[in-house]
């Protein structure tokens, strides 16, 4: 009862390799170089121009108390580094959410998860700033995590009821609006002078980042990255759907919980430090996948992180320098580039899937 499916049975040479995806080496090289160049350029440019040689000298000597050294070490380097770290974290967080929902149009911002974190942080800041001069970053991260967990829980509940991704997206955007409304309400009625910062923060900004903040953020995001790499194998299997993943031995309940926790931890950390930064989490993984043409998590995880870092540093550079001395919010710039990508995804989705 066997029929040959094809006329001839001889396999063409090299057919058995999974070599369809391009080799990622040129991608990693290009993105790394671009990232390094942009970071150097970003540290050097601004109202006070600092030449690359000078930057190198300051970084190597560890600061000499000069104005240039203070600008580099206290203001610009923390900002650029945080843009890189948090950009990578956001992109990775989006990638994990996309695996979780089995859909490329998922991300911490569009699903309202960043907004949930934002509201929780705003609430904690207003309550605590009344009594203390400074709120420890650990408290903010925890608050952001709680907020994003609540918003994620909401979205997961909705996703059980609506199968359609577009409806889920609408639910996410609406819950995002709801959270933003609450945040704005809190800001309007809080009259502390420090609250002014809150408004800037709620639009997303890497300004005012300290080296300590960068270190804490890098630690949390680094942990998230390592955990994601450990999840690479089940991620690969889960891409074929829940039933198939279960049938090859993936512990679905544990895996889904791990996925959403790591994703939430990453986006909460970013939100706590820099506020909600839109669209990086959805646009970067999409573009990375398209360029690399692979689904292999062990390639995509580092690629997405690197590309997210580069994208965020670029957007921050634009935010700082495009209309200097006026500065744009980072969210303004990322929306400008990210939203069209999402529209493009929605429009081309059918063909993309087929």
């Amino acid at each position, binding site marked *: *009862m*066997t*029929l*040959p*499916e*094809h006329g001839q*049975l001889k*396999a*063409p040479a*090299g*057919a*058995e*390799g*999974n*070599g*369809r*995806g391009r080799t990622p080496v040129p991608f990693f090289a290009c993105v790394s170089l671009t990232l390094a160049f942009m970071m150097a350029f970003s540290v050097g440019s601004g109202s006070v121009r600092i030449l690359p040689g000078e930057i190198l000298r300051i970084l190597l000597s560890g600061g000499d108390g000069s104005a240039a050294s203070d600008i580099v070490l206290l203001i610009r380097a923390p900002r650029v580094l945080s843009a890189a770290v948090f950009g990578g974290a956001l992109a990775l967080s989006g990638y994990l959410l996309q695996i979780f929902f*089995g859909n490329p149009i998922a991300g911490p911002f569009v699903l309202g998860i960043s907004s949930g974190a934002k509201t929780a942080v705003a609430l904690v800041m207003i309550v605590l700033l009344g009594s203390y001069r400074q709120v420890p970053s650990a408290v903010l991260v925890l608050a952001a995590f709680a907020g994003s967990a609540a918003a994620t829980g909401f979205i997961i509940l909705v996703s059980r009821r609506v199968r359609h991704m577009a409806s889920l997206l609408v639910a996410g955007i609406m819950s995002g609006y709801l959270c933003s409304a609450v945040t704005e309400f809190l800001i309007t009625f809080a009259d502390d002078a420090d609250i002014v910062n809150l408004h800037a923060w709620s639009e997303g900004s890497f300004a005012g980042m300290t080296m300590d903040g960068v270190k804490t953020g890098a630690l949390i995001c680094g942990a998230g990255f390592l955990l994601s*790499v*450990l999840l*690479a*194998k089940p991620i*690969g*299997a889960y*891409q*074929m*759907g829940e*039933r*198939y993943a*279960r*049938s*090859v*031995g*993936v*512990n679905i309940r544990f895996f889904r919980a791990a996925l959403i926790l790591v994703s939430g931890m990453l986006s909460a950390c970013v939100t706590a430090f820099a506020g909600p930064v839109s669209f990086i989490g959805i646009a970067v993984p999409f573009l990375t*996948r398209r360029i*690399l*043409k*692979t*689904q*292999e998590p*062990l390639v995509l995880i580092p690629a997405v992180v690197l590309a997210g870092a580069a994208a965020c540093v670029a957007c921050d550079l634009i935010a700082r320098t495009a209309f200097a001395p006026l500065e744009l919010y980072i969210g303004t710039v990322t929306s400008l580039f990210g939203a069209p990508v999402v529209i493009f995804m929605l429009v081309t989705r059918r063909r993309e*899937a*087929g």
Partner: protein
Amino acid sequence: MSKAGDRTAYTVTLSDVSAGYGGEPKIRRITLTLQPGRITVLIGPNGAGKSTILRTIAGELPASAGAVLIGSAPVASIPGRELARRVSVTTTERPDTGYMTCFDVAAAGRYPYTGAFGRLSAEDREKVAEALRTVRAEEISGRLFMEVSDGQKQNVLLARAICQETPVMLLDEPASYLDIRSKLSLLGALSAHARRYGTCVVLSMHETDLAERIADFAVCVKDGEILSSGVPAEIFRQEIIEPLYGLPEGSYDPLSGTCEFRGAEGKPELFLISSGGRGVPVMRELQRRGIPFAAGILFENDADLPYAKRLAAKVFTAAPFRDIPEETAAAALDAMEACGRVITTEDPENAPVQAQVASLIRAAEDRGILKSMEELW
């Protein structure tokens, strides 16, 4: 970590199993023994509970009562990774696999054997390639899974299950939505694999004809219960298949394994003289046009007879290997004259025709009521 698949022969036993979603059980008191080296086919109407039985065997759905044993171990007690080496599952789902190639999709079956990061060893790759050869999909190995045909997709998913090297394979409607050639190719590869490795294969199917051909053992499922089970010769019979699917009596044809429409009823308007299966296309055409007709005279061993019994309003039959009784011949002649139109697939000039049938054709010719096919359509 052992890389070889578990080649132990496992018998799957369900004793008094009930399971379902939410409160109401979808399947009730299922008792079934599934032998290794045998292909068991679950048949029954949509929503009967075939998929639920498969999900319960796979451990996806816990049994609310009764026990499912893989070998001697209850399925719920087997750890995920161990279970993945004993039972593979193929569903009707067509996952959105993006940039995964057919090779990548098939290689997902090696998951229970790879290390912490899921990298494939040379041995793993060889096993995937071999599985793709078994389903004759080696040439599409490098193509994107999303871009190949449904039949090819299903072959690749079967290769995935094959390289998972499990002694128990569960397949939920593997042949649905495939064209006939793809169905044969898929089921052929599956049965070859099962025979070679003594695999316990359980699949659900809607195609009763193919089910009869591939099954070593058939199980009829209706309303969450097993109506009957047995070897195909016991199961693929009118008295079992018709009530199983709620078919009107006489519509299932055990010879072809499929269903026939009922012929038009009423006073015959046309008389068909045929034999040897040549009358079947004519009878089907008359059925489509809703023309009631009489058929005869057919010997009881004629290939046309089972179809005439379903499709004709009136059939004249006679015992084979002897002369047709006079009264039968006379009754047929009367019926023919009453119809007023006669059509025949026989050609007495060029091929031998039984003498009394030949005289019937001559009588029609003499009366000027013998029509050619062209005149009729």
